[in-house]
């Protein structure tokens, strides 16, 4: 599990943008994402339940959230490897952060790393729903804290 302590969302996003600018073309970007997908720390099998599925039209995405020391830890998985790669990026950005930071975070960095097409609602890969779901968890935990 990738744990980056005390790094804020914005910094992580900038770090990811830097990494992606090194690639010359889409193929390198996708190869990188596929590698990320393969190395994604998987969600514990007990959480791969129907309840945790975010239903996209095409690939299945599971997300689990828990609270640790005021921060939300996300784990996730998908049955499609490219989707998994994107999830790995999202987890790196949003996991291990405080609920209020997750709620306020913008997701414009996805565009900057050349993955904008995956954010189109018509893409139907569950990614848009996934970001929404991560933020919903954050809102729910934030409500508990208040």
């Amino acid at each position, binding site marked *: 599990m990738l744990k980056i302590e005390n790094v804020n969302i914005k910094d992580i996003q900038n770090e990811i943008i830097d990494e992606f600018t090194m690639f010359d073309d*889409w*193929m390198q970007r*996708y*190869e990188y994402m*596929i590698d990320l997908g393969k190395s994604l720390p998987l969600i514990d099998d007990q959480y791969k339940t129907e309840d945790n599925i975010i239903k996209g*039209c*095409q*690939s*299945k995405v599971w997300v689990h959230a828990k609270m640790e020391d005021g921060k939300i830890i996300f784990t996730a998985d998908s*049955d*499609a*490897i*490219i*989707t998994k790669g994107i999830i790995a990026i999202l987890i790196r950005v949003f996991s291990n952060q405080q609920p209020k930071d997750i709620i306020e975070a913008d997701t414009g960095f996805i565009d900057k790393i050349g993955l904008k097409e995956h954010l189109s609602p018509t893409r*139907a*890969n569950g990614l848009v729903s996934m970001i929404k779901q991560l933020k919903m968890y954050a809102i729910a935990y934030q409500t508990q804290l208040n």
Partner: protein
Amino acid sequence: MKSINQHTTFKVEEIRKDFPILSRKVNGKPLVYFDNAATSQTPQIVIDAIVNYYSNYNANIHRGVHTLSQEATDAYEQARQKIQAHFNAKSSHEIILTSGTTHAINLVANGFSSILKQEDEVLVSALEHHSNIVPWQMLCEQTGAILKVIPMNQEGELVITEYDKLLSKNTKLVFVNHISNALGTINPIEDIINKAHKVGAAVLVDGAQACPHITPDVQALDVDFYVASAHKMCGPTGIGMLYGKSRWLNKLPPYQGGGEMIEEVTFKKTTYADLPYKFEAGTPNICGGIAFGVAIDYMNAIGFDAIASYENKLLNYATKKLLEIEGLKIYGTSKNKTSVISFNIEGIHPYDIGTIVDKLGIAVRTGHHCAQPIMDFYDIPGTVRASFSFYNTKEEIDALVEAVKKAKTMLS
């Protein structure tokens, strides 16, 4: 306006020139469009018809006495006659112009809600698109009728011996597609219709996937209802048709109330207009209807025999080439199928393959193709579907094969 090119001999290079979109690039690569089963591309002649309508005679139809309205009405009604002739309906009033296949199916399903009774049985095939499942489920919930499913086999064909067993005097309706959108299987609808009629059941055939490839003769088929969409046969979206035998269309109640579909209105009682207007409430898709007629002319000018024979060559070539890729499995292997190949590569999600081949400029469909029961049957999340049209080429199939190989290397 240019007249339709007569393609006296089938030359794909010439035909491709009729389609402006085929010269564009996607992700820096020449577009290879293999999503024809979802929607076909539009020839210039159809685009011209749309532009001409809005440039020269845009008006509401059937109402105005002015010249524009007359011209638009004439063009719209001529389109209906073209559709009638194309499908060989007995009368043009048996052709109801709808927004598409889904609308047409819902119109019939709604009509039967006042006819079906509890314990009546409705048969639907396992190969259906969601649009030919859900309206009947709703109908059955509403009426208490029972929905039964004609099963399929591993090849993706309907099991006709099981169909025979399901038929009984309780069977009131049978719904089946002419050709499966997910697998390309051509169903034996003559046999299905014939047997249904012997027990007194009506048959609706969803022809959305068939009409781009073959010309159904509704009288020879003796089918009760046949539905199709223009956008799968070189026409625009938002227009389609319902053919229904007069006897049935007269029996079914109107679907929607509104202008156009009435004969006389008082607050006491409204009498409905005759066919086809009884089912065409409101201002119709006038331009779409006219363009639908032009699309049918265009396809007939090329010739459906030439189209079917060429597409069959593409299908055989693509099947052979794709099967050379190790681990590739084709779903839907009936001998009777159209130019649709649904496939997966072992261990790779179809969505991943679709994403990579799109980056290489190739448009395929991935997912369950709105036919989840078929995917459940094969126990797969979906497939990659490449569907070929008469304007595609062998070179494009080579590009697909190379792209799939590349995707496989990247994703394995």
